[in-house]
């Protein structure tokens, strides 16, 4: 347990194009006790710009955790994943693939690209909420993340 309250809140970058999905994640975390800051970007190009702190994202801080959808406009989630994991500055940031897909190729490919885990969104609301909260709990409180 390395819960240190005095630290600045952890930043989660949610890369998700669909508003409904973004909102569901937010709803799931509404009553969370953990302090965090959630940033969202709606496509793969924006995600990379955010991570490289370019353009409108020049002043943002690097996230502590990335939640990545696979099917994204402009730049595909798989490409985003590959670029993150091939970049010496970014590769240590944990990436969670959260997607509707159950496709075996997607699962295999994601791990091949060094995703830290692959989670299929549940159709059942309660399960979905539980998944999102567990992600938060596990990655923000249980594990020790690499220092920025």
């Amino acid at each position, binding site marked *: 347990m390395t819960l240190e309250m005095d630290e600045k809140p952890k930043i989660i970058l949610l890369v998700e194009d669909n508003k409904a*999905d973004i909102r*569901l994640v937010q709803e799931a975390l509404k009553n969370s006790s953990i302090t965090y800051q959630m940033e969202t970007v709606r496509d793969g190009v924006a995600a990379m710009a955010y991570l490289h702190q370019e353009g409108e994202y020049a002043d943002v801080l690097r996230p502590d955790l990335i939640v990545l959808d696979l099917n994204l406009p402009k730049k595909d989630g798989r490409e985003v994943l590959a670029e993150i994991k091939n970049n010496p500055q970014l590769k240590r940031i944990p990436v969670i693939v959260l997607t*509707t*897909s*159950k496709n075996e190729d997607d699962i295999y490919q994601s791990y091949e690209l060094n995703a830290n885990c692959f989670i299929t*969104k549940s*159709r*059942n609301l309660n399960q979905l909420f539980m998944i999102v909260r567990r992600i938060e709990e596990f990655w923000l409180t249980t594990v020790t993340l690499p220092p920025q």
Partner: protein
Amino acid sequence: MKSTSVKFANVTSLNELERQAIHTSSLVQPHGVILVLQEPELKIVQVTNNSYSVFGIRPEEMIERTLEELLDPFQFEIIQRGVKQDNLDFINPTKMWARKQGDDYVIFDGVFHRNTEGTLILELEPAASQENIPFLSFYHLARASINQLQETASLKDFCQIIVQEVRKVTGFDRVMLYKFDEDDHGAVIAEEKLDHLEPYLNLHFPASDIPKPARKLFSSNWIRLIPDAYAEPVELFPLKNPQSDRPVDLTLSILRSPYPCHLEYLHNMGVGASLTISLIENGKLWGLIACHHLTPKYVPYELRKACEFLGRVIFSEISNREESEDYDYRMKLTQMRSQLINNMTQSENFVDGLVKDESSLLDLTAAVGAAVCFNGNWTLVGETPTEEELNFLVQWLYKNIEEEVFCTDSLAEIYPEADAYKNVASGLIAMAISRRNYVLWFRPEVIQTVNWGGDPNNAYEIINSEVGQRLSPRKSFELWKEEVRLTSLPWKQVEINGVKELRRAIVNIVLRQADELALLAQDLERSNSELKRFAYVASHDLQEPLNHVSNYVQLLEMRYGDRLDEDAKDFIGFAVDGVSLMQTLIDDVLVYSKVDTQGSEFTMTEAGVALEQALTNLQKRIRENNAQIIISDPLPTLKADNTQLMQLFQNLIVNAIKFRSAATPEIEIGVKRQEDEWLFSVRDNGIGIDPQFSERIFVIFQRLHTRDEYPGTGMGLAICKKIIECHRGKIWVESELGKGSTFYFTIPVGGRERDLRNGRKAKNYSFGGGQQS
């Protein structure tokens, strides 16, 4: 083509007969004189030892002289110039006045030739008349004959005219037209004779009657006269050519003495004199005009030449006749072939086109049966051996026959197993299209009687005499009948040529169809990858909005449940159920579309392990229903897709539990080894299925119950069927309402690859044709 079953009693001796070097015999018929000359001075180096009786000069005196001393000087000059020419025909024949004693001259027909060693040989025969036969009379003779020939309709009549005319011109007692068969035996096809002579017409004579060296002689020496079969031959003096120290080669000599065995043959036949004219077609000895006379008979050189001329002219006409007699038939065959080729190009596969018009296929070779073997499948037309017999026959052909088109009129003689079906296939034409793919035509056995001139099995006998053993020809030429069995009517060359043409066409069509197939395969691959893409879209893009509907309706209920009345909650329930069914349907369609022959590797799979996995996946349901699972046979290891096999067991067991009756579910899984496949069974004691629905249940989305009674998408059995089809097996159900159901499925023992090799069902779109698998 004609083969006969005649075997000769003493093969060794006959081989010797074949080897006899007739041409090295130095014996010469005594009615003429041979002078072997040394060029350029034309000195006599050898002479036949009858010179004294002809010239009154003894041989040893003759060889002291030159030709000049024998002839008058004017004539000698002409000859000296003549022999310097390459073509000796310009001076042949020459009337020669040879000086006997003093001013006594003898008139000869002189013929020069050079033998194979280049030695100049002059042959002198006493001239019958002092005059040459005038050219015009020669012409009239030939023209009369030829006119008559041209008016003759059939080949048979034509041959008859030939012997008639030759007999008229030469006055021989018997004139025959003798035709050689493929195997060198021959038959008399036309005969003209004195009435009281025994007929030889239609009699066959064994090949040994005219042995190979003799046939070779006839090929090079187109006319051969034996004026007196009883005359004592004379020898050359000296025996050996003083220049070469070898007997001189007399192959091309017209005076050379016949081989003693042939003379004896003539004696036994009662022949006193013979004249033989060779008929040559494309350099090959086609036949002979054989003239026999009971007593010695001399035929002057000119007349012989006239006969030879007649023979050549007539013969070119025979060839034409044979061709034109074939012509109509050939045209008919060509027409039929074009029709077949047309049918083949218009059909999806050539086999269908080939057998579309059965009678054309048979008529193409005048066969009674035909069989097409393609990719291990037989298409039979007319009367044929059984498929099993044909399989063996094709194996034998594949191993033993190299020709692309092979034919025999006695299959049983080379392939004894064919004896069993001689009544349909004594004659065979086999056309190889490619490895083990054949088109075969059959003809039945026709028992034929061959009439031989004397017993061909005893054509010769060995005579022991003081000088040792010698071969002696048979004494009797009486009709000797032989029954030839296991033989069909012979295939005609035009029929064989037709098959060769057809083969070329088929090979082209097959090649073209292979190209089309390759294109088709490309199209398939393309549509397959599009299908995969679609499957992905279905799994992700279609699921996503559904998830949203589902999740937000649930969120609505979760947050505002306490403010909603019962109706509102029902409505939410219907919305959630609808979405969830939609999601299940999409999932099942996805599973269905993933069951695919491509991409999945068939490996050796333990069916038991696949079943265990299925049972593990279903353990909750099994427990809930208290279902008994009985595995009654040890499950085999077979070539299959492990995941698909697991899915198959899972779907069948799920169904068995889902459609349970009031009784405790009992599910028995069994397997039996059939000849070349495994037969699995999954038996239950459930509600059973009305047999009228036993096909319908395997169709995608088809259900027999409402979802309220039994939930489900109607995909489970459709998926099972597709899995089994991918394994080239079959699936079916045997059931009655209320009495439980047994689902059966088969999987080929060697997996689908083996099935692909053996059956065309698997590749229906290629050459397989109409029937649905």
